[in-house]
């Protein structure tokens, strides 16, 4: 019994010792580079201190010499000798000060020149909403958490890129969910071409690849409803898991913007479009692209016009299962300057019901938003949005939010400081087919970046 206890005690001691070694040893290894650098700086500092000591010794010698000379001088000569000694010391002190200042500068410069390898910076966004409705789930009212969004871009090298957007979000039941909203690895061939693989925001229109999950970025309180993310009321495949080639070709007076992508075909699960992060069952892809032109000089500076399209076979989780070929053609316009921020997008759907065979279904959705940045303390905006979605199309009828509506909204953004925005929006929404009715919203939002 005692032997067993001793064995257990010895094992525990070995375990603790091993753990301590790991705790002490692993960080030491990780900090080896830092240690070298610190040692080098310490060496420079030691040299500098040595120099100061030499100068101080020289000051002491001078003072001693002057003190020794004074008694041999006449009383009359002694009087001016004292100020002379006093004059020599401040000169050397000034030199020492100069040396010390120089050392301080070297230290500062060395510290700030150091490569940024002190770890992965943590940045992100968060927002809290309040009003007579939840801006994303209008059946809820009061105060609402929305996003806590962490944005990580670990450095892999000059050409290899990584981007992760990790989001803690509250759903319509008040439950907090965690999602890797974007997880992309990329290779930058040149300024004109970058290839990403992973989960990305599907490149269509403007909003979906310009505003992302950080609500602070958006001057408006929220995206147009049909362009919201899949779990917040949007009806588009906002995320795609696949490959995405993107870039810009610069020319005189403007640049051509292009995107091409292919990924897993989405699936409607429990009434929401799911991007099938682990692959889909039928193996059909979504593919599409976007082409735009941005004026960077002249009368049209700030204007971007573009077109986009995608095609995908999207099924659902119903029995019997529906399968629809979703074909979207769109266009967008953006006028973005120091004074104005106007955006408009239109999406035309020509969907084909495959299982069951229901033929073609045409739907459309569009919005226009006008913003004015000319007022120094606020950015007012107005938006009109409309979705006319065919309820005999399984792609829309299978979605919880796949109904037709129109909404008018006015709002404003006020920056409390450069990291905190306060936004308000008044909106009137009409549902026009699956449900018929209307409601008014008075919404507020505090959005931050960090």
């Amino acid at each position, binding site marked *: 019994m005692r032997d067993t206890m001793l064995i257990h005690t010895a094992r525990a001691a070995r375990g603790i010792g091993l753990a301590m070694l790991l705790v002490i040893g692993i960080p030491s290894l990780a900090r080896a580079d830092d240690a070298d650098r610190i040692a080098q700086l310490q060496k420079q500092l030691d040299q500098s201190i040595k120099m100061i000591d030499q100068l101080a010794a020289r000051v002491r010698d001078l003072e001693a010499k002057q003190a020794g000379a004074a008694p041999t001088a006449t009383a009359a000569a002694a009087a001016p000798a004292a100020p002379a000694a006093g004059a020599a010391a401040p000169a050397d002190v000034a030199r020492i000060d100069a040396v010390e200042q120089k050392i301080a*500068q070297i230290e500062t410069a060395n510290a700030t020149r150091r490569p940024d390898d002190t770890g992965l910076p943590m940045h992100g966004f968060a927002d809290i909403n309040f009003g007579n409705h939840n801006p994303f789930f209008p059946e809820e009212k009061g105060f609402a958490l929305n996003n806590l969004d962490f944005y990580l871009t670990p450095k892999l090298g000059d050409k290899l890129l990584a981007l992760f957007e990790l989001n803690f979000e509250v759903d319509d039941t008040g439950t907090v969910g965690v999602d890797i909203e974007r997880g992309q690895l990329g290779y930058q061939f040149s*300024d004109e071409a970058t290839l990403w693989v992973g989960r990305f925001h599907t490149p269509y229109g403007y909003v979906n690849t*310009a505003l992302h999950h950080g609500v602070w970025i958006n001057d408006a309180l929220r995206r147009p409803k049909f362009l919201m993310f899949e779990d917040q009321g949007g009806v588009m495949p906002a995320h795609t898991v696949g490959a995405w080639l993107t870039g810009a070709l610069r020319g005189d007076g403007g640049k051509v913007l292009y995107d091409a992508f292919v990924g897993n075909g989405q699936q409607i699960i429990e009434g929401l479009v799911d991007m099938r992060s682990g692959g889909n069952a039928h193996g059909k892809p979504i593919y599409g692209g976007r082409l735009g032109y941005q004026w960077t000089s002249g009368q049209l500076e700030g204007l971007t016009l573009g077109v986009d399209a995608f095609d995908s076979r999207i099924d659902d989780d119903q029995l019997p299962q529906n399968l629809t070929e979703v074909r979207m053609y769109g266009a967008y316009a953006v006028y973005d300057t120091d004074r104005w921020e106007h955006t408009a997008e239109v999406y035309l759907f020509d969907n084909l019901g495959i299982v069951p065979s229901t033929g073609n279904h045409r739907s459309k959705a569009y919005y226009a938003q006008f913003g004015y940045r000319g007022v120094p303390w606020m950015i007012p905006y107005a938006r009109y949005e409309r979705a006319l979605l065919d309820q005999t199309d399984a792609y829309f009828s299978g979605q919880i939010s796949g109904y037709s509506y129109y909404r008018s909204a006015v709002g404003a953004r*006020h920056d409390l400081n450069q990291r905190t925005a306060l936004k308000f929006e008044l909106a009137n929404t009409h549902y026009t087919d699956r449900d018929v009715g209307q409601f008014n919203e008075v919404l507020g939002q505090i959005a931050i970046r960090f």
Partner: protein
Amino acid sequence: MQCPPQRRTAARFVLVIGWLLSGACLPATNASPAPGLVGGIRLDMLPQGWRDDRNQAFALNDLAGRRVVLTMAYANCHRICPMTINALKDLQSSLDARGEQADFVIVGYDPDNEDAATWHQYRRSHHLPRANWHFLSGSHDDTEQLARQLGFSFWKYDEHVMHESRAVVFDARGLLTAEFGPDTRGWTAAL
């Protein structure tokens, strides 16, 4: 006559919103140089290999002997940078009124999307023709090093550059002598 509770609540709500909008809840400071940088950085310690908006090589040492106001910006910014540029314009006007001179240096945050032509167009569209205003772009490494040395913290969120309104001032000896940030009120008075 007393207000009904709903009206009192509404009035309080309006007062709170007014207070928030007024910015009174936010701290403001006068120009107070950061002790860690001021006196510790000289212009000649910074990266020197830049291109100006005429695509000519430009070294910050070329400005030795002159007072320099330096900021960082990105040409596509429509929220923060216009404020910074307006503040620099005010500084320029103030110096003109006092009969003093300085060079204004604007270094681009985003070399991927900004080159000499971009800044040349920026200068034209923002009506900044003066020769003592220099719009510079450089390599990734030099840009990041300059930002680190001068305390310009920034990060990229896709095509957006997250940053703040900030400027530093070097005196004629090339020593960093002042730093203006987003909470600094009165850049002009502080120079």
